[in-house]
Each structure stands twice: as structure tokens, then as C-alpha cells.
């Protein structure tokens, strides 16, 4: 019996101790008409050898194409140490640190994580993480409403660069609490906020600014932050933690800084893995800490006055507050945060700067190369971090399909997300790509564009 240790003798002795004749009798409180004979839809068991063979076969179908897609999930080199240590059984198979004395490893790791992510975002305090970046925006919006009592509206304004999927997720999660989301108009030239469109009588409860934007552009975060603060709004920053090696931390945006920073932690040592598990980080100013959702670890002392770590501010949480909790969340993404903490410890700030700067350098090489081809140009002017929107002279989908046939995943078809961005392609390059990889992509694109059949319709 896979993973069940009982010998026949064990089972017999245990049944005798309980005083029942067989295993079925243990279920005698269940109405007999509900008991099923067999289940459909589940095949016969495979041995480890068989499932290993099957999974290798399936993995081979997907292969390891050369990937130039970003859009919220980024391919970075993950040092061997990260998952070697994170999947040690003592991290991998432990649970939420309810028994603090027997969970100091997990608790101290989270405390160190909270310290690192606050350093990176510049804000005062952090929670132990949320599910992912998208749901993080939902939680941040709910938090903004709880904390911003001065503004009566429940309208959250989104800069045009906010990831459209994040907006959908926030709407699905926070929408049922009567929070509404509306987008600020985009300046077609820069891809950023159209400041002329802003209504100075607006009374948003929060303004969400994503930097770098979903379209790869760099927003004038200072101006937008100041505008939001003047309206009494909470400023929510969505940032890529890797970009913070080069870009101004949310705490320094505008005259007073963002109130809350959140985003996708995946670039910090978490594999792409088809979209998860990742982790959402959230940091905020000290004054908002009691409205922050999720677990928080604090340092305290034990009976001998020695330092130790424990979950704290639990009075905000569902297991205490039940229907009045700040969120229904009862876990963080412990294992992913463990990986990220190891990653940040290994890289240090200088390592992050190297990764981020090489990513930007590689992106520039690709963008310059592609834009030298006929029929490719940038959609927006201005600086970028490691993602850029390009406009092709034809629909993107058939071009991507032709590239994929050569095992090159050439980017994201933006028109599928933002219909007004016709024929637009979002590309991303990180430090993992060599000049040869990049040139191979440029070459493949040249050939595809030269092929009339890829022009599609």
C-alpha cells in the first residue's frame, strides 16, 4: 500500500483494540446508501518508476523553448542553493508556525524575509506574504478602504500601466465588497498616465501605480503619487522587486512616498512553473500595519529573556476575528518566501543590480535588433526596465506561432489584452539570455517577417 505502513498484523491488532471486526465498520455512522463501491475517473496506481517515465514523457512534449515572454512572470537564473535548501524536509514538510517553539526556523526565516523586502521597497513593515501579485492588489485595495476613513468613496483608480489581469483579479475578489475599479486614461505617446485627463475633483480612496508598467514603460511616479496624496488617496505601488535594484523605491515616490507596495515576488528565486506557486509581497507604512492582511512574524523574548520569533498581531486574523477579520487568508506562501529569502541572501543588493542591469542590457540588444527590421518599431517612447512593447506591421498571433515553431517564444500578443494596442508585441529579456540567443531571435524574426504567409489577417 503506497505510503501506508500497516502490516496485516498491525491492522488486526488495531481493529481488535477498537473492538470492530473490519475496516468497513469504522464507517458505520455514514448512511449506507452514500457509500460507493468504486470511483470513476481515477486510473490504476502507477509505481514511482512508471510515473517517473510518464512525467518525463510529458515534460519532453513541452520542451525548453527560448522564452522572451515576461508580463508578470520572469525567467531568472535560480542558484542551486535556493531550492536545495528550501526543499529540505524541515522547511518543505512543516506547517504554519502555530507552535512557535517548534517552528523557529520558519519564523526566523520569515522575519528575515520581512526585513529584506522592507529594505527593498523602503517601506516600514511587511507581512509574511500573500498568494501572488494579482491577489495582492485585491488585498491592498481592501486594506486601503479599511485604512482610509477620511475618503468616503470606494473607488480605486488604476494607472493605465496596471496589469489588466491584476485588475480583473482585484475586481473578482474585492468587487463583492462594493469596491469599484476604474482606469485612468493613457497617453498614447508615452503609454503612461494622461495627466491632462485627471479630474482634480476626483475622490478616489486609492490610486494604484504600477512601475514598470505592464506595457514596459516607466511612469512618472512622483507626479502621480503627489496628485493622489493631494486628493487624500492611499497610494498603492505595484512593483517588480527585481526592478528595485535600479528604480526608486516606492517609499521615495513623490513627496511622501507610497502607502502600500505590493507585487509579484516570483522574480526572487521562484521558478516560472506555469504560473505558480509564487508569492505576493506586501509592505506598508507603519501607521497602516494593523490593517495589513495576512500573517506577520515578530521578534520577542522567551521565559529566559532570550530572543525568539512568533506570529503576532493575530487579532486581525480569521481564526480570532472570524467574520470581522481583515481577510480570510490563513496561510502565506511559506515555501516560496523561504526560497526568496535564500535568493536575496545569496545575491545581496549588488547581485540584484547585476541581474537587473544585465536584463536591461539584453533587452536593449533585442529591441534595437528587432527595430532595425522593416515593419518593427517601438509603440511608446521613453525608458524601460526589461520589457518593451513593439508594433509590427501585421497581426502578432501568426508571427508568434511561426516563431514558436522554431522553439522561440517571442513575447506576448498585447492586442489580446488591450484591444486598442493593435499589432503590438510585448517582449522581455533577462540575464538568462546570451547574445547568441538574442541574435537567434532577431534572425528568426527577420525570416518570419520576410515570409508573406505570416502576414495573416
Amino acid at each position, binding site marked *: 500500500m503506497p505510503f*501506508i505502513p500497516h502490516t496485516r498484523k498491525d491492522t488486526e491488532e488495531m481493529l481488535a483494540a477498537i473492538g*470492530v471486526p473490519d475496516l468497513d465498520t469504522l464507517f*458505520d455512522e*455514514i*448512511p449506507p446508501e452514500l457509500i*460507493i463501491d*468504486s*470511483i470513476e*475517473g481515477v486510473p490504476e*496506481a502507477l509505481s514511482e518508476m512508471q510515473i517517473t517515465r510518464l*512525467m518525463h514523457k510529458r*515534460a519532453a*512534449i513541452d*520542451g525548453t*523553448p527560448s*522564452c522572451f515572454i515576461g508580463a508578470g512572470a520572469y525567467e531568472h537564473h535560480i542558484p542551486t542553493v535556493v531550492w536545495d535548501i528550501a526543499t*529540505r524536509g*524541515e*522547511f*518543505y514538510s*512543516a506547517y504554519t508556525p502555530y*507552535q512557535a*517553539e*517548534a*517552528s523557529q526556523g*520558519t519564523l*526566523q*526565516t520569515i*522575519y528575515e524575509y520581512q*526585513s*529584506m523586502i522592507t529594505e527593498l521597497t523602503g517601506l516600514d513593515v511587511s507581512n509574511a506574504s500573500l498568494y501572488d501579485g494579482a*491577489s495582492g492588489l485585491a488585498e491592498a485595495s481592501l486594506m486601503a478602504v479599511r485604512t482610509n476613513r477620511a475618503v468616503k468613496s470606494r473607488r480605486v483608480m488604476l494607472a493605465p500601466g496596471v496589469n489588466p489581469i491584476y485588475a*480583473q483579479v482585484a475586481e473578482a*475578489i474585492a468587487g*463583492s465588497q462594493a469596491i469599484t475599479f476604474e482606469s485612468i486614461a493613457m497617453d498614447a505617446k508615452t503609454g503612461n498616465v494622461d495627466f491632462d485627463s485627471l479630474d482634480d475633483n476626483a475622490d478616489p480612496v486609492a490610486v494604484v501605480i504600477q512601475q514598470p508598467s505592464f506595457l514596459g514603460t516607466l511612469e*512618472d511616479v512622483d507626479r502621480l503619487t503627489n496628485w493622489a496624496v493631494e486628493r487624500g488617496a492611499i497610494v498603492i505601488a505595484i512593483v517588480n522587486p527585481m526592478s528595485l535594484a535600479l*528604480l526608486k523605491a516606492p517609499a521615495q515616490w513623490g513627496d511622501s512616498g507610497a502607502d502600500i507596495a505590493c507585487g509579484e515576488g516570483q522574480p526572487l528565486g521562484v521558478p*516560472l512553473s*506555469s504560473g*505558480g*506557486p509564487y*508569492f505576493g509581497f506586501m509592505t506598508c507604512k507603519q501607521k497602516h500595519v494593523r490593517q495589513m492582511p495576512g500573517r506577520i512574524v515578530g521578534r520577542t523574548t*522567551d521565559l529566559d529573556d*532570550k530572543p*525568539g520569533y*512568533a506570529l503576532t498581531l*493575530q487579532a486581525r486574523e480569521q481564526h480570532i476575528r*472570524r*467574520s470581522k477579520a481583515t481577510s*480570510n487568508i490563513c496561510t502565506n506562501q511559506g515555501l516560496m518566501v*523561504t526560497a526568496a529569502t535564500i535568493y*536575496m541572501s545569496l545575491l545581496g543588493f*549588488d*547581485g*540584484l543590480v*547585476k541581474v537587473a542591469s544585465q536584463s*536591461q542590457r539584453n533587452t536593449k540588444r533585442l529591441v534595437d535588433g528587432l527595430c532595425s527590421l522593416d515593419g518593427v518599431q517601438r509603440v511608446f517612447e521613453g525608458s524601460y526596465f526589461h520589457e518593451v512593447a513593439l508594433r509590427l506591421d501585421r497581426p502578432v498571433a501568426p508571427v508568434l*506561432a511561426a516563431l*514558436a*515553431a522554431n522553439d522561440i517564444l517571442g513575447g506576448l500578443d498585447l492586442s489580446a489584452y488591450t484591444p486598442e494596442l493593435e499589432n503590438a508585441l510585448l517582449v522581455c529579456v533577462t540575464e538568462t539570455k546570451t547574445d547568441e540567443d538574442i541574435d537567434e531571435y532577431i534572425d528568426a524574426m527577420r525570416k518570419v517577417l520576410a515570409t508573406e504567409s505570416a502576414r495573416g489577417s
Partner: protein
Amino acid sequence: MEYRMEKLIFEKSRSGRRAFAQAPRETAATDIPDALRRTDRPGLPEASELQVVRHFTRLSQLNFSIDTQFYPLGSCTMKYNPRACNALALLPPFAGRHPLGPVSHGQGFMSCMYELQEMLIGVTGMTAVSLTPMAGAQGEFAGVAMIKAYHVARGDLERNEILVPDAAHGTNPATATMCGCVVKEIPTGPDGDINFEALQAALGPKTAGIMLTNPSTLGVFERRIVDVAKLVHEAGGLLYYDGANLNAILGKVRPGDMGFDVIHMNLHKTFSTPHGGGGPGSGAVGVNDRLKAFMPIPVVGAEERDGETVYRWLAEDDLPQSIGRLSGFMGNSGVLLRAYVYMRMIGRDGMRRIAEYATLNANYLQTKLAAAGFELAFPGRRASHEFIISLRKEAKTVNMTAMDVAKALLDCNYHAPTTYFPLLVPECLLIEPTETESKETLDGFVDAMIKIANDARDKGVSYKEAPYKMPVRRLDDVKAARQLDIRFQRPD
């Protein structure tokens, strides 16, 4: 083993030290406008590779875990996490697959997801499954949101009350509130089943649905579940199944057959994906035909093309009434892969064995502890995969509370059971051994419990200051909350 606390990684940091092999060799010139450029230097640690390895290895050794200790944490199903599940989910094509990669480079992954959906449909008796919720609590959210969407789609706009038993997990009422519903608590009867009369009285034209765990958080099977379902449906409400305790009935009884309309599963419990120190979870939802149209997206669909099965994402166009997206991509895919591998290794017949041996272990432990003089919360009842003992007697006579026993157990090298939950049993321990523990382990645990109780009773031993053998002794929670220290402060 002697434990020693570690300094913080920040305190081990030395300016200018690097783990050289980890980053690209050089910093490249960058192009960022001055107004947007970072000028300060955040205080991340500066350490060598060996220092980092040693630091986090030592930290890991300060944890209890399934791999190192018996972990009978009630309601959490801390069973063995097979190593193959992890290794196979991290095969390079799976670990490196971009979530927005084309389906042409995802058929292998998607076939696993499709088959996982099918297997979960099979064990739950529902008609469709969405894998996207990222944890149990998000699965709950999806469930209640679907119930709400169902009523709204029918023009039934007044239904905003969610009934929740008083024994329920705290996430249930918190979820209902998040969905904009009003929570109505239903009391439990003395035998652990729901108070039927109170339920009848609570139902009405405002009832949106009821959230139930069966077996309940009290460790007993709700015997009148079919009548409960009938009653709720007659009142126009729907039934939500909290899958926290699915391990107890896997392969024996299906929530769909009990009359539930929607269920969330905790794949990190029943299907043995790692708890990871508190996540990632994975909270797939199953629905019957009533709620199929409202499932969270995306879902994996399959179609036959030229004699071959081709997988594709079902999203807004396929499910226009969906409650929407709950994650940036498709949920915790890597966790889902682990669950897939686990279910394939367990197989059809193995599912039933999980419920049988989890239940055998719980009833055996219950019998032994009762024989040793511990008070069962529901003595007349069969245990499901977990059960509750109450220490209210010991708390009065020898001043030994559930908390004291929990801490004393740590010193005996056992993780404590769940304490003080459910809230309605005083001084309770909720004990769930799971099917992967051997008889010897259970016997050892019983011996430890007996010794703890006997020492308190016969020798006057107090556990108020236990544990003694852990890396730290009891921590000052009040100080932790009052003098908030939740990050390292750099000495300036």
C-alpha cells in the same frame, strides 16, 4: 539534540562579501532617468555561499516537520509528502514553463492538469473542477462567490445569508463576509451533529447557502446530511462543502452524493502537497451542473482533433458567467503537478485505503487515549480521521491545560495537536494522525500522553513553563504585539 538559535543573517553580513558564483559577472551600464533611479542602498545581507547554506540549513533544523516528527495537527492532515511528487514537478520543462507560453508548448503540462480535473471530479462526485484557487481560503471564496452569482443570475437578489455551524473553521465566516454576505451561526447539538431545529428556523427566503465540513471539525460525520441538504435546497439555498476533512472519506463517500453543490479541496492536505511552513496551498473547487457556468477561470478543456486529444484554456469566451480570475495566471500550478503525481501513484483503489487507514489510526488513537483516562469530546461517536479530547477535568484538578499538554508534547519530540479549536469544546486537543503513521508511532504518542498526565497528577509536575528542550522557551506574545519588532533595523 541540542538546539541553538542562530543570529540573523544580517548580523553575519560583512560589507563587501559576495557569493560570486550566483550573479552575472558584471554590472552593465543602465539607462534610467535620474528622477526614477534608485540612489540609496538597501540593507540586504552580504554573505558567502557557504554562510548562506549553513545559515538556512541550521534554521531548518529548528523546525518540527513531518519528515522529522509525528505531527498530529488536527484539521491539517499532516501526512507524508512523497519525494517523487516534488522531483517530478520540478523537471526543467515544467519548472521553466512560462505561464503565458503558447499551448503548443504546454500540451504535456495541460494534459496533467486536465487529468487532475477529471480525477478530482471522480473522487468528489461533482461534474466540473477548476484548479485555480491558490489555497483553501481562496477555494472557499470561489465557492461562496459562485453561490452568490448563481442567485443573482436567477434574479434572486435578496439571498445574502450564509449559514455556518458554530464549530466551523474561522475562514468560513471570514469568507462569507469577504463575499459581501451576512453570517448566521447554527448551533451544534450535544452529539456533535448540527442542531436540526435551529437549522430549520434559520432557513428562509434570504438564505444563500450553508457552509459545512463533513466529517465536521468536531471529528464526527454529520449523520443527517441528506436531510440537511434536502432542507437547504427546499429553502432555495445551496450547499458548500469545506473539503478540509476530505481525507476521512476519500474513495468511500462523495460530497456530490451527499447533496453538495460546490466543494473546495485542500490539495495540500488530502493530496499530500507540501505545507511548506505555511503555504503554498491549493484550493481547487468542484461544482455540480448548477454552478458550472460560474467557475473561476481558466480551466483546461480537451477536444479531439484528427484523432488526437488537444488541450486548451477555457476562459472568458467559454465561461462568460464566470466569477472571474482569482490569480495572475492559473493558480499554484506547481502544486497541482505534485497533486497529480500523488494521485496517479495512489490510484483508484488507493484512494479508499487512505480514508480507511486514516480512520483506523484515529479510532485506534481515540480508543487508547480514552482507555488511558482522557475525556473524549464525543464519547458515543465513531471518530472520523480525527477526534477531540478535552482536558477540562485536568485543568481543574491538576491545573494542566490543553496548552500545557501541547508544550509538554514538544519536549517529548511530538508536534502538538491542534489546540483550542474548535472553539466550542473547552480545553480541547484536536488530534489527526493520518494514514501514513505506523502503529508504533501512535503507541509512542499514547505513552507520552500518559506520562505527561501521570507526572502532573502523581508527581505534581507543572508544564506552565514548558517546553524546556526547544530552541526557545515559551515566548512572550503580549510583548510581541505591544513592542512590535517585525524587521531587522540596521545600526546606523
